[in-house]
């Protein structure tokens, strides 16, 4: 830090920072090579300048994926929330519903995780906190049937925005991925254009496996947006850079806590700055 010359030590330091932030070895090498080339071409002459260029390269990449969710007025808008186990889907739904409600929309939550113990009760508590209706069936019922009910309710004017909670599933579980595809199919059949948004919830503590998650959920149900949760922790969520580069999926929101208000729009500028912050907090 505060070095005058660009040397191997500087590159090693940057490499360590990127890898520690979960950017991943391959993409880190790519970024470092880019910088090395620029130095060779004498485009960069000081460590400060080099770091600046590295940051702005990352910001530019993420900026392309910075796209807040826009929900059109006066029509039914359905959001299918998916992801692997424990990433924060249900909690994020509570936060989203709260935000949309504050914006004056009529929202309903849909309990299509009929599998995990007390998943319905968990969402029910969130629906009470936010003050929006919950559409549910019994434990272990067919999630597609719950979604069907929800769309029927929305068509009859009960809600404009439907946010659908699904059971956590690993992207490698073929049966469960098929079940999710079926939910999507039923939605499209009952309401052309539905689901309008397929939100993939990724946990910022996840390492390189998040790339597989993004790929396989996208292949299965066409992910249209990402929420990156748990950024209030010490993990930096750098794997999102690799996902942004490879899949170009809009990053809608970040989660920064367990409370109702702990949701923010994704901001590439702030994200990259935080990624280089030492020690966090």
């Amino acid at each position, binding site marked *: 830090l505060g070095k005058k010359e660009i040397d191997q030590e500087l590159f090693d330091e940057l490499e360590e920072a990127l890898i520690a932030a979960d950017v991943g070895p391959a993409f880190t090498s790519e970024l470092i090579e880019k910088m090395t080339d620029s130095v060779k071409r004498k485009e960069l002459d000081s460590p400060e300048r080099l770091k600046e260029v590295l940051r702005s390269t990352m910001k530019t990449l993420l900026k392309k994926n910075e796209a807040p969710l826009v929900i059109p007025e006066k029509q039914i808008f359905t959001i299918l929330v998916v992801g*692997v186990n*424990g990433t924060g889907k249900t909690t994020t739904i509570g936060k989203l519903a709260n935000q949309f409600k504050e914006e004056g929309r009529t929202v309903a939550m849909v309990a299509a995780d009929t599998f995990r113990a007390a998943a319905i009760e968990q969402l029910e508590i969130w629906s009470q906190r936010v003050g929006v209706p919950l559409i549910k069936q019994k434990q272990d019922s067919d999630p597609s049937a719950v979604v069907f009910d929800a769309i029927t309710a929305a068509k009859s004017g009960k809600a404009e925005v439907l946010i659908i909670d699904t059971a956590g599933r690993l992207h490698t579980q073929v049966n469960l991925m098929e079940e999710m595809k079926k939910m999507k199919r039923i939605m499209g059949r009952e309401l052309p254009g539905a689901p309008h948004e397929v939100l993939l919830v990724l946990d910022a503590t996840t390492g390189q496996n998040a790339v597989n998650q993004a790929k396989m959920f996208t292949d299965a149900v066409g992910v249209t947006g990402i929420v990156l949760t748990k950024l209030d922790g010490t993990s930096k969520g750098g794997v999102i850079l690799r996902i942004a580069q490879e899949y170009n999926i809009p990053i809608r929101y970040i989660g920064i806590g367990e409370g109702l208000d702990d949701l923010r729009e994704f901001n590439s500028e702030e994200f990259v700055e935080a990624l280089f912050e030492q020690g966090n907090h």
Partner: protein
Amino acid sequence: MFENLAEKLEGVFKRLKGRGRLDEENIKEALKEIRMALLEADVNFKVVKDFIEEVRSRAVGQEVLESITPGQQIVKIVHDRLVELLGGTSSQLRFGSRFPAPIMLVGLQGCGKTTTAVKLAKVLAKGGKRAGLVSADVYRPAAMEQLRVMAQKIGAPAFNADSSQDPVKICVQAVEEAKRNGYEVLILDTAGRLAIDTQMMEELKQIKNAVNPSEILFVADAMTGQDAVNVAAKFNELLGIDGVIMTKMDGDARGGAALSLKAVMGKPIKYVGIGEKIDALEVFHPERMASRILGM
């Protein structure tokens, strides 16, 4: 994938001269590939660094065995070293002589503590130990209900508390009840928390002081990335942990976090979670884990 690494390394050696002996020069490229593979598997950066140095010093000077190609030989060295690092300490749970022996599960949000608590009760019951369960999670909506429903499924007794109570008191009362009922083990499920949340970490310390657990187990998600060691080290520093349970190993995560935690803290990995079902908990096998990290 293991084949891929071995093949990649063969490719590396083919390009190099002097194949009779492994020396600094001809294993340099190979080590680069191994380093990439480990980082891709989420093994912690610093752990990888030390690991590569060790493999280098073990490999250099070795004759390339006639029966084996240099790439395979390196992979064998790497694999053996991984197994060594992952294994060692016995993975048995210690119960001590108290009834009940409290076992406390701690970790980040959503890593799988509640599910693992019930799985563990089942494993213990199979081994003839009567284990009770209690949730000290008064924060996450329906956390207590989640434990209750799962416990009921396997007929394990779950202590009845509600989320208006104090977590420390809940645990103390549960221990007393477990004692009255003659349970040999009491599994304490705690709320997920960040290691940097001082207040919440203080709560764990208070629970620990109140019940004096025979084991504190850190539950870690197999998909976690580079920060896993920092988090676990912080839990260990503030609370002291006796072992690790790795969850969600049924997916395709390579689980480099497992190696990292073992290497940095020296705490044994006792069990691995391999599914959402209550019987999806297995004893940890260093051999399998090593192969997995290398993508075998």
